[in-house]
């Protein structure tokens, strides 16, 4: 089994937290994991890309080869379209519908969302709305983890444990908010 993921977003959106939660759950399930991160200049409000590879056998490359990703998981709709050369024809794009318009030539949002919907396998979730309902807009990235949990080769309970671990230092309320966000995302991806 090999499950390659491209994580996309805009610098500052918490792409690395998403990667860390999924990687931790995969390791708890005894899978091999390679996780390539972005640091430095590209984090400053620009497009960011991280690679996360899961498998039941050792993984050689830190980077996902083109055409092999099973999932593009994006915090932002325009960014969900930027790395399609990595996506396998059977792969899924899961993205939040909430745009980050920090560029002057951002296309009309409807156009962007239409482009996503026209992909063979696309799931769109209103990450911000679901996160706010769960208790905090800052949990948007855990909504996306929840939505991804529908296609990840991982147990939802393992992901929930890793979310709880990750936010434990910030108190029970933060843990509950992030778990609620995760469940809301999971529910949204099902419907």
């Amino acid at each position, binding site marked *: 089994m090999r499950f390659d993921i491209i994580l996309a977003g805009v610098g500052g959106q918490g792409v690395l937290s998403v990667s860390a939660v999924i990687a931790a759950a995969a390791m708890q399930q005894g899978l091999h*994991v390679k*996780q*390539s991160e972005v640091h430095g200049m590209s984090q400053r409000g620009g497009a960011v890309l991280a690679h996360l590879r899961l498998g039941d056998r050792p993984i*050689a490359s*830190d*980077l996902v*080869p*083109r055409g092999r990703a099973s999932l593009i998981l994006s915090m932002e709709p325009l960014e969900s379209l*930027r790395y*399609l050369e990595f996506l396998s024809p059977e792969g899924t794009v899961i993205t939040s519908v909430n745009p980050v318009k920090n560029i002057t030539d951002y296309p009309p949002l409807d156009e962007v969302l239409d482009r996503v919907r026209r992909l063979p396998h696309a799931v769109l979730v209103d990450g911000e709305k679901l996160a706010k309902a769960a208790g905090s807009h800052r949990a948007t990235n855990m909504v996306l983890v929840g939505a991804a949990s529908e296609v990840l080769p991982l147990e939802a309970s393992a992901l929930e444990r890793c979310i709880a671990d990750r936010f434990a230092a910030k108190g029970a309320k933060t843990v509950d908010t992030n778990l609620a966000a995760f469940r809301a995302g999971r529910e949204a991806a099902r419907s």
Partner: protein
Amino acid sequence: MSDRVLLGDEAVALAAIHAGITAAYAYPGTPSTEIMEFLRVEHERRGGPRAEWCTNEKTALENALGVAFVGGRAMVSMKHVGLNVAADPFMNAALVAPHGGLVVVVADDPGMHSSQNEQDTRYYGDFARVLTLEPSDQQEAYDMTREAFDLSERFRLPVLLRLVTRLAHARAIVRVREPRTPNAIRKSDSPNSWILLPANARRQWRALLERQPELVAYGEASAFNTLTPGSAAVPAVITTGIAKNYFLENVDDLPERPWHLHIGTYPVAPSLVARLLEAVPRALVLEDGYPFVERQLRGLAPSRYEILGRESGHLALDGELTPDTVRQALGLEVAPAVTVHDGPLPNRPPQLCAGCPHGDTYAALKQALAHFGDAAVTSDIGCYTLGALPPYGAIESCVCMGASVGMAKGAADAGYHPAVAVIGDSTFLHSGITGLIDAVAANANMTLLILDNETVGMTGGQPTMLPSSRLKDVVLGVGVPPERVHVLSAHPRQTAANAEILRGELAHDGLSVVILVRECIETARTHKQAGAKTIPVTAAP
């Protein structure tokens, strides 16, 4: 001992602690920064060895050299261009025969994710005639760092460890071993080796050259270099560093498994190359960086061997390797991706954060410059380099650490007015002060703007070496006239007033320095959160 999930950078840092270093030194630079970040956390939370940020890579290496001078183990880490700054101590450290292990870790940035060039540090190892180790994964990053200290003491040489971005910034499981006790501190029993007067230096250089066969013999026997037989019907493959992973990613799709030589240590072991080329006279060289091995193997003299790689057109001459470029070089098709027929997307380049003080300074500078003809505005390395992009378009150069100051003086010397240099506080301390002294000595007709955000911003908010309050004293101390030195607040409310002061200094015939102060909004936020968290601690029992 146990397994840990570590970045390549963190694996190096942990290995240095386990190797028994007395101290580590660094200047921040992507992709090397997380080495010292990890060491600092270990030092502050768990009593790990001394771990310090320094003013620049040269002072960092000299600090480490001093530890080795008295017999301790020391590590210095930097990004690739940092070794240019530290090249003087590095080249000469190869001659002094340290008895305390000295490891120089340099993280290259093929593809220039966060750099001005993609220079390959392996040339420096060859230049200095020292051993260079190049890990292929996080486990080797740990194992090679441990071994590098032993090798440094065995051969009495600094040992260079070369990382690349994708290894430095990728996480994997690392198995760690029992720590070793730090060295006892004592000076060398051959003190003359450290005094590079010509008579000593000639002897030391000769000794270094005579040790070269030992370094080659190490490579011949090292388990980091592997020769794996395969089919003689297809070209052999030579990999270095992480290129091995991209080869292994694709090898199962090849009709026949080629002969494979992996190189992890330099100088390259010639007998391994000879055995490979005797089996197959045609070899593809895969290396994430310059065609360093490829060029050595091809040489200039006519040869019966065929060496393929970047210079034969099998791979691009520039840029980092990927599993896909390697796949194509191996003659395999890249897997088809999902098909889409939409047009291109707008780019989203990195940009200054909303509310960044640099944006306000650039607004003031542009207002001030509007009163003059064509100005020359040089700048430097840091977040403020993003001022070159829209909507600012405020600066015209970014070359190397500190270059803005000397370049503005040169432009002024050549008759350009106004000539303006824009530099950050940490870059100024790193390499700008010396340029300012030149400008003072010549009373250059230029204006220097120091953007003081009280941190090293681009690399994640490391502390600067002097507090903000001391910058003005430094500027006055080197002799800039007090009436030509201004310290202003880089607050949006002050933009119009700052523009007026800048306008006056731009018009002044001579040297002026304007320091624009406001804390980086990222570190300000972190400090606020940390401050809020520390309050309850006073109530703890």
